[in-house]
């Protein structure tokens, strides 16, 4: 089957989430992604080299096994459809090997703290010397320049410093962060297109480019109306819980069972009429307290009580279907199990099954887009640490077996993290 990005090679020292998820999508669509780690500094998403059961990692059957770094679920999801090589980039021979691979690569994607690649001698200007039309995407937390360029971040701190947390929180309560670390996946998905825009430029002009993406700015860029309200009206937004800035009612309502909830959002007067009828309360439609959005906003608390009385004795999934059939926006608040069995996700083939062995085979997340002619798919499971080192050095970097053996002896390509654990 044709894959749209066949023939593109990505050299990928990126770590953790935003970078690896971007390159995973490129890999699923046919790019040759070479992930660079080292036994001394493997992707921290691989977890502890000596992980214990019951820790933070997601391991099949809760068993970290003898090589937990090859078994962690988040790592496995974000790094499938890639090859893995180990290169110690603090060693000059590791740097040399990286450059020799870069000379045959189209793109380098990295998300180290600002300055780290330069210190390795692998900054954009270094790489341009070996590959003049290289495309480099740096996704530092604050961008590559400015007084905070060297500051670190996690998804959870980006939600704070980019403004998302300032509008997230219960009505009347403090700002708070999400349970999802939303900036990471957000940055990963847009980065796919940025890299391919650079490719287009290269096809047109023959020139590569250095892309300096700020994860913090990218996260703020999803708050256009919030920023514009400030620049227009000097107004700072506060959390409004699950309510909508305009429509009403909107909320999350308890259903039958433990911790089971249904999200409902009434956008228009017609929605309100359909909702009231579905609840068996047609008299509410023309009740002046609720018949207009002004009234529904004013009496939102009363509506929440009234809606909860109706939902709390009902099944969430059946009620969602009933409301949707009446044209009212409603959706079950999905847990992990609900996602895996979600009829929509299953029908569209969202889950892709992979694993190194049949026992390890599990559903993994696919992509937010489908292509009618070049679908893309999980081509192979996440690589074992260093599984492709020798092959890549031989076939991409053009090294002789003697050179490869020498790098191994020097420890540059060491791929057993346990030899660095005391």
């Amino acid at each position, binding site marked *: 089957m044709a894959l749209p*990005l066949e023939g593109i090679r990505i050299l990928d020292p990126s770590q953790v989430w935003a970078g690896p998820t971007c390159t995973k999508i490129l890999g699923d669509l046919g790019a040759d992604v070479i992930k660079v780690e080292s036994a001394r500094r493997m992707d921290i998403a691989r977890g502890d080299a000596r992980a214990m059961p019951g820790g933070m990692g*997601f*391991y099949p059957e809760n068993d970290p096994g003898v090589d937990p770094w090859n078994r962690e*679920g*988040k790592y496995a999801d974000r790094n499938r459809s890639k090859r893995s090589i180990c290169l110690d980039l603090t060693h000059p021979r590791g740097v040399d090997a990286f450059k020799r691979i870069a000379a045959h690569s189209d793109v380098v994607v990295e998300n180290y703290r600002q300055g780290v690649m330069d210190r390795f001698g692998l900054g954009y200007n270094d790489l341009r010397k070996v590959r003049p039309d290289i495309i480099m995407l740096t996704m530092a937390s604050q961008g590559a*320049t400015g007084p905070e360029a060297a*500051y*670190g971040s*996690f998804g*959870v*701190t980006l*939600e*704070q*410093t980019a*403004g*998302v947390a300032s*509008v*997230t*929180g219960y009505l009347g309560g*403090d700002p708070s962060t999400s*349970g*999802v670390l*939303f900036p990471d996946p957000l940055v990963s*998905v*847009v980065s796919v*297109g940025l890299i*391919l825009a650079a490719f*287009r*430029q290269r096809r047109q002009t023959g020139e590569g*480019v250095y892309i*300096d*993406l*700020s994860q913090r*700015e990218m996260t*703020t*860029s*999803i708050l*256009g*109306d919030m*920023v*514009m309200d400030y620049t227009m009206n000097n107004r*700072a937004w506060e959390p409004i819980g699950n309510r909508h800035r305009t429509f009403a009612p909107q909320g*999350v309502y308890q259903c039958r069972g433990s911790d089971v909830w249904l999200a409902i959002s009434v956008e228009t007067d017609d929605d309100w009429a359909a909702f009231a009828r579905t609840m068996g309360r047609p008299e509410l439609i023309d009740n002046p307290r609720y018949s207009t959005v002004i009234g529904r906003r004013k009496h939102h608390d009363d509506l929440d009580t009234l809606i909860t009385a109706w939902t709390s004795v009902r099944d969430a999934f059946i009620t969602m279907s009933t409301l*949707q059939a009446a044209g009212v926006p*409603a*959706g079950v*608040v*999905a847990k*992990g199990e609900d*996602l895996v069995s979600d*009829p*929509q996700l299953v029908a*569209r083939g*969202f889950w892709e099954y992979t694993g190194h062995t049949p026992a390890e085979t599990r*559903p993994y*997340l696919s*992509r*937010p887009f*489908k*292509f009618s002619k070049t679908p893309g798919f999980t081509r192979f499971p996440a690589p074992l640490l260093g599984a492709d080192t020798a092959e890549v050095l031989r076939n991409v970097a053009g090294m002789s077996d003697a050179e490869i053996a020498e790098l191994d002896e020097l420890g540059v390509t060491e791929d057993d993290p346990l030899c660095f654990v005391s």
Partner: protein
Amino acid sequence: MPNLASPLAGVKVLDFSQGTSGGVSTKLMAVMGADVVKVEPPGVGDVTRAQGPFPGDLPHPEKSGQFLYLNTNKRGVTLSLEHPTGRAAARRLVEWADVIVENFRPGQFAEWGFGYDEVERINPGAILVSTAPFGQSGPYRDFRGNDHIVQALGGLMYVTGDPKREPLRIGGEPTDYFSGFSAFSGALIALTYRDLSGIGQHVDVSAHEGIAVAQMYSALSYIFTGAERGRQAASPLYRVSDGQVGVSLRQQDWPGFCQMIGRPELEQDDRFKDMAARRANQEALTAIINEWIHDKNKQDLYHEAQKMGMTWGYICDTKDLMESPQYRHRGFFTEIDHPVAGRLTYPGMPLRWGDGVWDLRPAPLLGQHNAEVYGDLLGWSQEDLVLMRATGVI
């Protein structure tokens, strides 16, 4: 003369989308140099024109903050797809375009004669990008969805908020933007393939699937360990004199932190000796941090901790963002002059492109480029334009 960044120069985009998700995707393309023609319904225009925010809270179709932000660098025309003459004109625009973006309810565009098969007949290399809350197929295809509903069904909401309360949504419209970013990347993947093969295709973007990708932990926790990931107590945010600060203490941060708070003896305290011990004694630790931190200033704490290598944050509201020295240094916020709304500050492009500068231009007035686009592409005369306007086509 600065070097303009325009990696997508020469790409022709026909944008039928309304609202945020489609608007975001074509905004990125437009700022990156593509020629984006945004098609709006005659009369009222894009739905965001009515939604604000508006200066002084006075509604005006040319002054909606969300519309102005989402539509920079685009050309704007009006066209009624309800009208047979409008659909005939749209077919000729489809012939012109490399990429066509739409986010009508699934099936609507096909009913108007623009299903992918038909688009392919009109323009074999065209890329049709459709975004919808649940995509173009499946049992939920016709479900009504918006940001709130997609956050729920996509798995983002269940894990957000207080474990003792109801699930909570992320503020703003994060799923619409996620969907827009997905449409942008989906279009570029298809365009890459088309440039190499000459083959166009249909790109089907589902906001629901985007959020199912974003949530990650809920599904993987269940798939790998069988355990549901609950709502986590949010990462510790501490109240300080002028806001809230996010305190993160990794193993290697602990000695420096003890010095920072003037309690070096805590470094030897068994209650806090490692991550597990600190988690077990979280209450005692929280009390110690609160006592030290409550009267301090959020920005001082953030900068001091970051300079010590600790990954802390602080809650920034819009004022904090506008005043951020980092954002100022990088010139993230940008002034754009608009003929009706005037000179306003917008969030700019969140990335830099080599040594090029982004050329940010104002959003189009409703129908601003009718004469230009219909004249150049369809050969309509001034007289034709008057007729089309009078008959409600444009």
